């Protein structure tokens, strides 16, 4: 069942879009999507880690003994996560303050480890890159959409722009933790309805 590169890339965008289809990596999905901007920022950080770790794992896949593959993957992933954290502190400190603890927690995001284990360790370099890129963009889109839904309902604004007009009464529940579960559930529901042909 040889898939083309384009297929590997595209599956992350819809068929296997991480939070909604695979339902993986939910901790940051729920925690940081209080605004669209935070969601996208978190998504991009995860995408970077995902692409880099997929590439490196794929390159090293024949050299890593299978018994210690998980520790090896963790070292690789952790390295890129700390790299992201340092770069974010240096060049996007505002975003770093918002995302805070959730950046280091990308290490234990099962999406990243999951793709290393399930895909990159068994596939060649280019498909792994495509897989990482697709999954990462899918993850970023999901977080962005979820963030936009919660921010617009919870505050009436998206990035400081009024979306529902001045008479809108903000539904503050949506930007709090329980609202994250409700919004995710509703989006999953919509995805399932759309996916049913």
């Amino acid at each position, binding site marked *: 069942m040889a898939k083309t590169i384009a297929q590997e890339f595209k599956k992350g965008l819809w068929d296997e879009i991480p939070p909604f289809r695979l339902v993986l990596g939910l901790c940051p999905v729920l925690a940081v999507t209080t605004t669209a901007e935070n969601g996208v920022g978190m998504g991009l950080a995860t995408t970077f880690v995902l692409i880099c770790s997929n590439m490196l794992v794929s390159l090293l896949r024949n050299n890593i003994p299978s*018994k210690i593959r998980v*520790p*090896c993957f963790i070292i690789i992933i952790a*390295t890129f996560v700390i*790299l992201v954290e340092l770069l974010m502190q*240096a060049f996007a*400190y*505002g975003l770093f303050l918002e995302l805070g603890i959730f950046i280091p927690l990308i290490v234990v995001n099962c999406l990243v480890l999951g793709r290393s284990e399930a895909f990159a360790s068994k596939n060649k370099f280019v498909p792994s890159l495509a897989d990482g890129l697709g999954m990462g963009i899918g993850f970023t889109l999901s977080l962005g959409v979820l963030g936009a839904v919660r921010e617009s309902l919870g505050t009436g604004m998206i990035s400081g722009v009024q979306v529902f007009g001045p008479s809108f009464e903000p539904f503050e529940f949506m930007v709090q933790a329980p609202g994250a579960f409700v919004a995710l559930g509703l989006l999953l529901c919509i995805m399932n309805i759309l996916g049913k042909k």
Partner: protein
Amino acid sequence: MREMVKMVVTLTILAAAAGGLLATVKTTTAERIEQAVLDYVQGPAVMSIMENVTNDPLEDRFALTIDNEDRNFFVGKIDGVPKMVALEGKASGYGGELGVMVGIDIETGQIVGIGITTHSETPGVGSRAESDIRFLKSFVGIPVAEPDKIYIGEDDGEIANIGGATVTARGVATAVRRAGDMYRNNESEIKTQVEAFAG
């Protein structure tokens, strides 16, 4: 046995390479990160305290090691003469650590203003400490040599309380007192450093 050796070697090489890479990146970004912390955390607070200075306090700063910690001091000058110095004090608030930048007039020893740097207080309740003018202004003019006054009214001090956020207000007052104590305990050293910025 061979398998064992291979596992050890692989992990060692991988970990060493990762460590080397990260050490390099950390050293190269250290300066930028320090600058970012100044810009985002301490900077806005310093600027809000020192409104009418004619220099850039973020540029004119020095560090002293007090209680085994490097602390930044920001010097405010008016027409080339150093007038005030700002330092950060910390205390616990309602939701975690509170950082408060305190500006002190070096001649009179009076507080010229305070600004909150970091906090994790409840949004909308304790977080009002950042913007409650009545509360922030009530620190102004109190000499750091009279710490008994730096308590909220309920505790027989001169600081205005923040309605519904007494724990936060107490925390901020404690942080200011600690900054004041730090200033008084190291006054001569701080003044020597400040004088170097004259002219």
